[in-house]
């Protein structure tokens, strides 16, 4: 008798709640945006956040609602932007140029002087809190690989000497690595660039000479002797302007006394 009673109560309760749910589903139904669904299917699904939205679905929603600019998906590139433009029925302005991350430093424990030996949490920003890192150069890579751990495509590698480099083929341009790097030594550059400056030091040449064997010593050979290399020395550091013709960059790289102009396709 008791059991029957309990059974009845549960049954009635179940029915009531079920009806309620069905009603709620009807009443509060979200109108599915078909275009958002279509766009989501086109987006690469990397959920990397390069577009600035929380994941691909966030961007798809914003695009279909007309709230976001097309072409922000760096992994998708030009192909994706063209497809999205078609769905939205807008003109395709093309994706921005494909950018990849690059670590602007080749200094390591063998090539760069150290002030002390860091012991502590294996995170670049943790090491950076103590005297901006153990290296005498305060602009370079700290080699603790924080960027590696946030990279969604495992595009960043560290060799046995500590050098941290990005595989430009695997990099989808999400910029996550640039956000965790305390010295901002990992930055984006156009993927088409054949060369890059592998140094980030704004110390004057004589200082760099004393502490690092592979740093830019601001000798200006690249800038003066190879005007078509794209190199300009600003704040004791050579910088390449990728918008300029770079016909002489290979020659400049060969002439650089510290060999800190390196091939970007590592």
């Amino acid at each position, binding site marked *: 008798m008791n059991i029957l009673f309990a059974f009845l109560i549960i049954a009635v309760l179940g029915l009531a709640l079920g009806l309620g749910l069905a009603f709620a589903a009807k009443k509060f139904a979200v109108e599915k945006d078909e275009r958002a669904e279509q766009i989501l299917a086109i987006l690469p699904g990397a959920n990397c956040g390069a577009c600035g939205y929380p994941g691909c679905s966030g961007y798809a929603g914003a695009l279909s609602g007309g709230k976001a600019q097309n072409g922000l998906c760096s992994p998708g590139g030009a192909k994706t932007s063209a497809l999205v433009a078609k769905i939205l029925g807008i003109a395709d302005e093309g994706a921005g140029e494909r950018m990849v991350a690059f670590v602007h430093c080749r200094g390591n424990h063998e090539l760069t002087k150290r002030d002390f030996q860091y012991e502590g*949490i294996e995170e670049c920003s*943790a090491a950076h809190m*103590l*005297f901006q890192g153990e290296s005498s150069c305060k602009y370079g890579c700290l080699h603790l690989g924080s960027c590696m751990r946030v990279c969604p495509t495992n595009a960043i590698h560290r060799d046995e000497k500590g050098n941290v480099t990005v595989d430009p083929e695997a990099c989808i341009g999400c910029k996550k690595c640039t956000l*965790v790097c305390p010295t901002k030594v990992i930055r984006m550059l156009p993927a088409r660039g054949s060369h890059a400056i592998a140094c980030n030091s704004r110390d004057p040449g004589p200082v760099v000479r004393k502490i690092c064997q592979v740093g830019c010593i601001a000798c200006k050979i690249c800038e003066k002797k190879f005007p078509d290399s794209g190199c300009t020395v600003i704040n004791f550091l050579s910088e390449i302007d990728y918008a300029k013709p770079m016909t002489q960059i290979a020659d400049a790289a060969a002439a650089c006394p510290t060999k800190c102009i390196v091939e970007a396709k590592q």
Partner: protein
Amino acid sequence: MERLPTFSKGGVHPDDKKALSNNQAIQRLPVPSELVLPLSQHLGAPASPLKQKGDMVVAGEKIGKASSFISADVHCPVNGTITDLRKVVLANSVVTDAFVITPDASNPLGEWPEQPYDALSPEELLAIVKDMGVVGTGGATFPTHVKLSVPKGRTVDALVVNGVECEPYLTADHRLMLEETERVLRGIMIVAKITGPKRIIIGVENNKKDAIAMLRQEIARLGFPITVMALRVKYPQGDEKQLLKATIKREIPSGKLPLDVGAVVLNVGTSFAIYEAVAMRKPLIDRVVTISGEAMKEKKNLRVLLGSKVADLIAFAGGLDHEPDKFISGGPMMGFAFHDDQIPVIKGTSGILALDKEPSAKAPTTPCISCGRCVAACPMGLQPTKLYRLIEHRDYERAMAMNLMDCKECGCCSYSCPAHLPLVHGMKLGKRLGRK
């Protein structure tokens, strides 16, 4: 035996190592051949330089001007010449501009005769404290005039003076209480005149019985309305929050200041500096620094001109006995490890320690075994292990929601962790990255 009061939540009992230096009377460090005087020796905005390279300066002259309300003036410790203004790195990794000063070889020091100050009003006293560049000498270096500026309408119930010196090794405040008792007490009475408290309490840990007795004797002789409270030894009792709990049984709520519970807290070193500022019009240009640690040949308490380099202090203490595992500026729990003996002593430098491996041992870290010892040790009632894990996963938002910003960086969690996790280092990292 009666149980002495202390704070209730958390805390640890590291070996206090005070016996190494607590019998050493304060000695004066001879004027070094060069001083490096940073413009940022305090919490808040750096002072702006008032002099340039090549200028002649006299002892006590203001050479750096407070650049905002929370900032402090910087004064020249000697007669001499400014030979440079350059960037230096301090023990706490702060990069700041500093004057390089060559003291006049024949007559480097100034003179500050005592003068009457009884007739001065509280406002005038406060103005002098500010003008003399006084900041908290306990280590946090908060500008003292800010602390003593009680907003209108607020009343101060208790002035609590910190004679705890809870960090191991440090004995500078202990020696001041013993050797400069009257001046410390007079300094406290000046603060009392500025802030008008209903009661005045000095809290001293019971490992300084001689100081407690001396303070009581002098208070009786001078007839000051000050109570000395002997406190049970427990780290970090010298923190404002723990000290107020131990002495007047008040809790400062999260994110609030002592003044919010009607208290003003300052330490004995600062009281002494206030006495000198007011009674002698002497700016804060020197301080007592403990030189200690197993690797130091002689242990000392030295009265040092600000801007003296650590190397000068170590040399005066007979040099190193052997290569230390690390140098620490301040105490071993909250101090800063440094590697360069050219860093200068500043207003907040309470000690220079050369430590062997043992006290700051670096055993290999293992994963957290969830023993909960860090939670039990945290005086702020935080959950260091959880916070650490969140910070490892870069989830600063949730760490903030778990009151990460309440962390005092006292080091109790790291000290008690059997897995040797660098917990406090993680807290510092999380606080820094989470604030952005």
